[in-house]
Structure formats: structure tokens, C-alpha cells
């Protein structure tokens, strides 16, 4: 079996969010970069679990980005995966990214394509669905559990107020979230091994972007907290009822 895991580079969860160039660019000064947590903790670890069950499984990682994404993909390789592919294009448009992944996936003949549920910077939840459409494959989004029995997959996915269990044959595209797998820490052997795993750089296919980010803005500052004394909790209830009119 062949699995393609999509890996994105995102700012660390504690990174300061600020913008430059008249609010058109994210201020990257001093920002630490990490593997998008959904890609790492759930998509990648799930693929690794599948390989542990069936060692003949081949895992390829793919990232779409410039050379500055390589440390991130090496970090991912330290957790697991056999080789990585970087599509050499800088991109901020989901359709462009998905088209690159779909082009590689088509060539590679994968049984499974895993993505994270969304990136923690763009929050699009778009790549998996677009890749599936471009490949004309079934897509199960927001998966919390995935089991494989031969070539039939059983997938739990989030719905409002619960979960849905579904069955589908391979090939399949899945977006992964909490529940799929447990976060792992790379060990020394993994980190050493990652240095020599192949990292292939491929040139992008030509695609027209469908969207463009014109500017960023920060949310308006909060007015400040109104503190109610601890011995008068009923006053808080009154404020929520009469002032904020919440109930």
C-alpha cells in the first residue's frame, strides 16, 4: 500500500501574529515554524501506525513550498515516512497547492492521501476536498478514526453533536483530526535516519490561482474585563441577563 501524507509548515502556536507592508504580509521575524499540528499528530502518525501493522506500506510526504520548508519536512521524516517530495513553488492559494498535490498523487498511484483537518494559519479545511475532486476520488473529512480491513476502510467522521461511521473502498482522500492517532515525539534514531531519507524536489505544474489575500487585520482590542466580587456571583448572572442580554 502507498500513502501520501500532506505536510504544511505553520507558525508555532505561540507565535506573535503581526503584519507588515501595510498589513499585506505576515511578519515572520522571530517566528518559529512547526509542522501543522493536524498534519503531524494525526495524518502522519496515522500513516505510521498503518505501516507498523503492514510493513510493506510505503509512506511519502509531500509539501508545497520553498526551500525554507525543508527543515519542517525533515522533522516530519524523523517521525516516519520513507521519502519526501517538495513541490518547489511558493503559494498562498489553496487551489494552487491542491493542484500540485493532485499532480504528484496522480503520478504516484497512492491508495490513501491524508491531510490534516486544516492548517492553523489559513484555517481553510480546503486542500483534502480539492485534491479529492481533482483526482475524482471519494473524500471523508474531519476523520476521528480510521481502520483498514483489506481494501475497505472504516472511518469515523465528526458531525454536529456526534460522529458518523462510514465505509469506503480505496483509493481515498481523508482529512484527519483529533482521535485519529496519538501525538508522538521523534527519537534519536528517527532524527538521524531522517537526514539520509530521500527528499525529492519537483517543479510545479502550471495553475492559475483562484484567490488572492489582499490584506490582513487584527481583531479589535477588548474593552477590558468587568470583574465581579467573588462573594456576589448573583451580580454576574444579573449582568449577563440584563446588560449582555444573553439569556
Amino acid at each position, binding site marked *: 500500500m502507498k500513502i501520501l501524507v500532506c505536510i504544511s509548515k505553520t*507558525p508555532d*502556536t*505561540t507565535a506573535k*501574529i503581526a503584519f507588515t507592508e501595510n498589513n499585506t504580509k505576515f511578519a515572520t521575524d522571530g517566528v518559529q515554524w512547526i509542522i501543522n499540528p493536524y498534519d503531524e*499528530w494525526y495524518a502522519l502518525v496515522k500513516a505510521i501506525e498503518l505501516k507498523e501493522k503492514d510493513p510493506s506500506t510505503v509512506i511519502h510526504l509531500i509539501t508545497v513550498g520553498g526551500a525554507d520548508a525543508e527543515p519542517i519536512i525533515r522533522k516530519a521524516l524523523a517521525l516516519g515516512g520513507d521519502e519526501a517530495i517538495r513541490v518547489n513553488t511558493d503559494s498562498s492559494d*489553496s*487551489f494552487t497547492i491542491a493542484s500540485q498535490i493532485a499532480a504528484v498523487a496522480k503520478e504516484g498511484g497512492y491508495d490513501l492521501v491524508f491531510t490534516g483537518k486544516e492548517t*492553523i*494559519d489559513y*484555517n*481553510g*479545511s*480546503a486542500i*483534502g*476536498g*480539492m485534491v*479529492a*475532486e*481533482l483526482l475524482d476520488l*471519494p473524500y*471523508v*473529512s*474531519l476523520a*476521528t478514526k480510521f481502520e483498514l480491513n483489506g481494501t475497505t476502510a*472504516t472511518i469515523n467522521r465528526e*458531525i*454536529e*453533536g*456526534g*460522529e*458518523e*461511521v*462510514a*465505509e*469506503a473502498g480505496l483509493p481515498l482522500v481523508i482529512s484527519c483530526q*483529533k482521535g485519529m492517532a496519538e501525538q508522538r515525539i521523534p527519537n534519536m534514531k528517527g532524527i538521524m535516519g531522517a537526514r539520509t531519507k530521500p527528499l525529492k524536489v519537483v517543479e510545479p505544474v502550471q495553475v492559475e490561482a*483562484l*484567490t*488572492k*489575500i*489582499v490584506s*490582513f487585520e*487584527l*481583531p479589535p482590542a*477588548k*474593552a477590558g*474585563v468587568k*470583574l465581579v*466580587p*467573588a462573594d456576589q*456571583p*448573583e451580580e*454576574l*448572572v444579573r*449582568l*449577563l*441577563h440584563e446588560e*449582555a442580554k*444573553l*439569556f
Partner: protein
Amino acid sequence: MSVLVYIDQADGHIKKSSFEAASYAAKVAGQTGTTAEAIVLGKVSDDLTSLGRYGISKVHHVADDQLNTMDSKLYTNAIVQAVESTGAEIVVLSHNVNGKAIAPRLSARLKAGMVPGAVSLPDTSAGFVVKKGVFSGKAFANISLQTSKKIISLTPNAFTPVQQEGTAEVVPFNATIVAPAVKVTATNKVKGEVPLSEAELVISGGRGLKGPENWGMIEELAHLLGAATACSRAVADAHWRPHHEHVGQTGGSIAPNLYFAVGISGAIQHLAGVNRSKVIVVINKDPEAPFFKAADYGIVGDAFEVMPKIIDAVKKLKGV
């Protein structure tokens, strides 16, 4: 040319987030000088003419039983057929669990620029620009859609639906449907609970509550207010509460009218999932807890002393 809104349903009932999407679509239609029509898939028990109250003129209904559960491919095919037959240029959906599966497929199929998770109406003064949340609630981005066809998926609870007089005309729509590749075999719903993603009021607990046995007060307050319950990652990781209650940067992202946080420190990753809430209330015994900086109301105090009194006051207010 019209605006087409996809109306999502569960068990035959239209979801609240879809009424928001319908009303949003009607407003966009008004902005662009056209009308808003809707597409509904699968069996429904709700009265579809009532979508007229949200500004929808016509509802196209595909009552095929194969569409009673969501398969993103089938749904996309049906919606694309409706787009073709209505000549719609703009498709609106809710950015809910199903919208997240369907919208990107539609975008790729129609080569239509998409704004996933819109939070306000388009700005059409120069081009077509829609605001969405980015950096997990820490910022917004204005996205320009450069294609003639456009997809907007609307963040739940970000747009207040406007109701008016009116009934929509409901017409059957004959879409070609093939067998689904993804077959739903079971649905496990937490009974009697308000789904977190749709909730207007949310009561949430953190590690400060010491253990799962102390969640009675969170549940009681939620029950009294008709609120959903949520928790911090630390709590879900400790298996005190189910995973689906985990909110934050790596859990659910919510924007309720009230987020009521008890014994949660307010770590930056937690705030990322909840800071779009309209009103934030924090109960924490530590006056230095970072959550107070993001709060509208707060009590510095011990949850175990404060919460029972809050519950009593709410009971008195509700007359129970």
C-alpha cells in the same frame, strides 16, 4: 445569474447554520442585484417554503434517498447540476462539518475561488473581497475572489439571520445521482445535548475543576441555560471529557454568543479556538490567569464556591 445556497440538513431538519447561510445568500443577492435560490438534498421533514422568510425565492429539492446521508462526491455532483441549471455565479454554504467537505470540491470542480469560513458580507466596492478568520482566530484576512464563479462558506454563528415575510416556491430538481462511494453505516449522537458547533451559549471547564467527577456543576449550568459543554485540551487529553468537547487551536473553533470558562487558564492555544465568542466570562482563582485579558466579565474566585451560587441565581431567574 443568481446566488445559490446549499441548505444542509440532518435527520430531515434544516440546520441552524443553514438558515444563517440562506439569509447571507439573500443579502449577497441583494448586493449583486439578483435573487437567491436554494438547493436541498435528501429527504426533509421541515417545511421548505419557510426558507422564504430568510429571503430565498425558490428551493430546488432533490428528494433522492441516496442523498439522505452526506457523500461529498454525490453532493458536489448534485449541487454542480443545480449551479448549471440556475446559472448561479455565487454558491453559499455553511462552513460546518458538511460544508467543509463539499465547498472545496465545488471550488475545484467549478474553478471557482473560495472563501472558507467567511465572517462578513462581501465588499464589492473594488472587486469581490470577503473577510475570513485566519491564524486560528487571532486575525482576519481579506480574500479577493478573482473568478467569475465564487464559493463562500460562512462561519457558523458569525452572521445573524434576518427574518422577513415570505414563502419560497419549492420545486423538485432532477439531478443525476450515482451510488455513493462512501456508505454511512452508523450515526453516534450524544443524546439530548446541544451540538457545540451550533450552540449560542457554551459552558466550558478546565483542569481547575480537578477531575471528571466535578463536571456536575458545568452540566447543570449548561442544562439550565440550554448551553453546550466544552473543555480545554488538558481536560480532553486526561480523558475527563470526550474529545469532541475540546476547543482551541487544535480542537474545535467556536464563536458562540457566550463562552463561560471555569478553571481554564486561557493559554494562547485555547484562546485561539474561542476568542471570536461575543461575550467571554472567566471564573478562575488566579487573578493573573491570562484568560482575564480576553474576558468581558470575570470572577476571581474558587469555582467550587462560586459555581453553586451562580447556578442558584440562574435557577431563581428562570423560576425553577
